[in-house]
């Protein structure tokens, strides 16, 4: 059991944990949609959205620090993806440079847009992280199913969840086996980078082959128990009134934030960037 870190928070108990998983899934998707629809310079709107997530993290008895630290993992990815934006957006030049003979210009609008994209990605990941920290994965799967996500897709995600633990264990065993044989008696060992990369490549290949063989055995086990191409599940229970009301309140708040923001922006004229 070396993989307990994968779902260590979803067993806790709080008002947020007890909410119907369908409510939490819809609320999270709506929140991400709202974050995406917020204009880049609408700082008050972003602040309200951030306060909403932080408030829910607090209500769920989760650590704010852990939540913030974990959500930062998205920053490097977003920065790489959005890196070209400050240079390619039209606007007032702030900074000019030459990369060899290539002129580079950073514009004010480009920088704002870049910042907005990083901020949106971070807020979205914060919300998604909150969802998985307060909802057990199994419940999330049931929620997807009853919200009409295609069964085949839910099954794929369900298999992924079931077997990621088996795979992690297998990968860890492979790594232990490698390390056990990586003796270094005179401190000169270790091999070249290329050689070590080849060893790692071999391990990944082994893992893939083992998974492939396992998938055939799993399929045989499914066939043995009557699987004939269509996945069947039991129907879900209906939503409680409390859950519906919570969702309604949350969605109303989101819509209000967005409506106010957009009306304000229209009134001022060029408060946003029209993106």
């Amino acid at each position, binding site marked *: 059991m070396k993989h307990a870190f994968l779902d260590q928070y979803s067993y806790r108990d709080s008002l947020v944990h007890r909410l119907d998983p369908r409510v939490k899934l819809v609320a999270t998707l709506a929140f991400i949609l709202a974050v995406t629809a917020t204009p880049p310079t609408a700082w008050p709107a972003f602040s309200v959205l951030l306060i909403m997530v932080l408030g829910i993290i607090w209500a769920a008895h989760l650590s704010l620090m852990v939540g913030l630290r974990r959500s930062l993992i998205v920053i490097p990815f977003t920065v790489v993806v959005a890196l070209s934006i400050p240079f390619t957006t039209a606007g007032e030049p702030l900074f000019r440079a030459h990369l060899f003979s290539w002129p580079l210009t950073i514009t004010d609008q480009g920088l704002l847009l870049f910042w907005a994209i990083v901020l949106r990605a971070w807020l979205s990941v914060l919300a998604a992280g909150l969802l998985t920290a307060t909802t057990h994965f*199994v419940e999330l799967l049931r929620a997807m199913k009853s919200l009409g996500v295609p069964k085949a897709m839910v099954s794929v995600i369900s298999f992924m969840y079931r077997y990621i633990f088996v795979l992690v264990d297998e990968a860890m065993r492979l790594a232990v086996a490698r390390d056990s044989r990586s003796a270094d008696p005179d401190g000169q060992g270790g091999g070249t980078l290329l050689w070590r990369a080849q060893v790692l490549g071999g391990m990944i290949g082994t893992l893939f082959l083992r998974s492939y063989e396992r998938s055939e055995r799993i399929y045989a086990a499914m066939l043995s128990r*009557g699987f004939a191409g269509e996945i069947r599940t039991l129907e879900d229970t209906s939503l409680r009134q409390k859950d519906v009301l919570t969702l309604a309140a949350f969605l109303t708040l989101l819509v209000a934030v967005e409506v106010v923001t957009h009306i304000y922006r229209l009134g001022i004229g060029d408060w946003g960037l029209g993106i």
Partner: protein
Amino acid sequence: MGIGDLREMASIVIEIDNLVYAYPDGRQALKGVSLTVQEGEKVAITGPNGAGKSTLFLHLNGILNGDGMVRVMGMEVMDGHLGAIRARVGLVFQDPDDQLFSPTVFEDVAFGPLHTGLPEGEVRRRVRWALAQVSMEGFEERMPHHLSLGERKRIAIATVLSMDPAILVLDEPTSGLDPRSRRSLIQLLRELPQTMLVASHDMRLVRDLCPRTVILDEGRIVADGQTDRLLTDAELLERHGLERP
């Protein structure tokens, strides 16, 4: 054909005649296996690694199709009968991580009953009953990756018991278990009333559970008889890579 023969025919649940199977790469796994099992018998199938035990088992519910005849409960194992046969033959794989593919124990134990088309109330009743049979009541919402190997082996058996099978086919049910889990699993298997085919090298499991033993080696049956008698034949066991319990 006398009355006695008819009575014997009626209680035959598995009938295999000259079964031959080669893997897609051409390797011969089964070279003419013939075997008859009566209702209620507990038969051990033993033999060295690669003897063809698992391959033979996969023929009992039509996962593999070799040449020769396989009949289960009077039905020939072929396309039109697969649904009915799979509902009667509960196949438990060696690695519970292959058998338990759902995120929770409940969904895994309910998988068979759901896919044989039972209504919800009956599915829930079957799940409760099957978990009680293997003494794992209350594990419905647990996840397989949080259970011990012994617990997973028991749940794996529950996943086929919930289909109320007439025949249980178990591949290495005790492999990897510590002595205590092993003993309690053998006790559980002894108490189950189903006809049982058990592939194992665990000679103490064979001795304690199965009155009849079949030794398979290189795709052929080399011995078939009373376990007491076969297990005292040290020379026979030695020749086929086995040992006395």
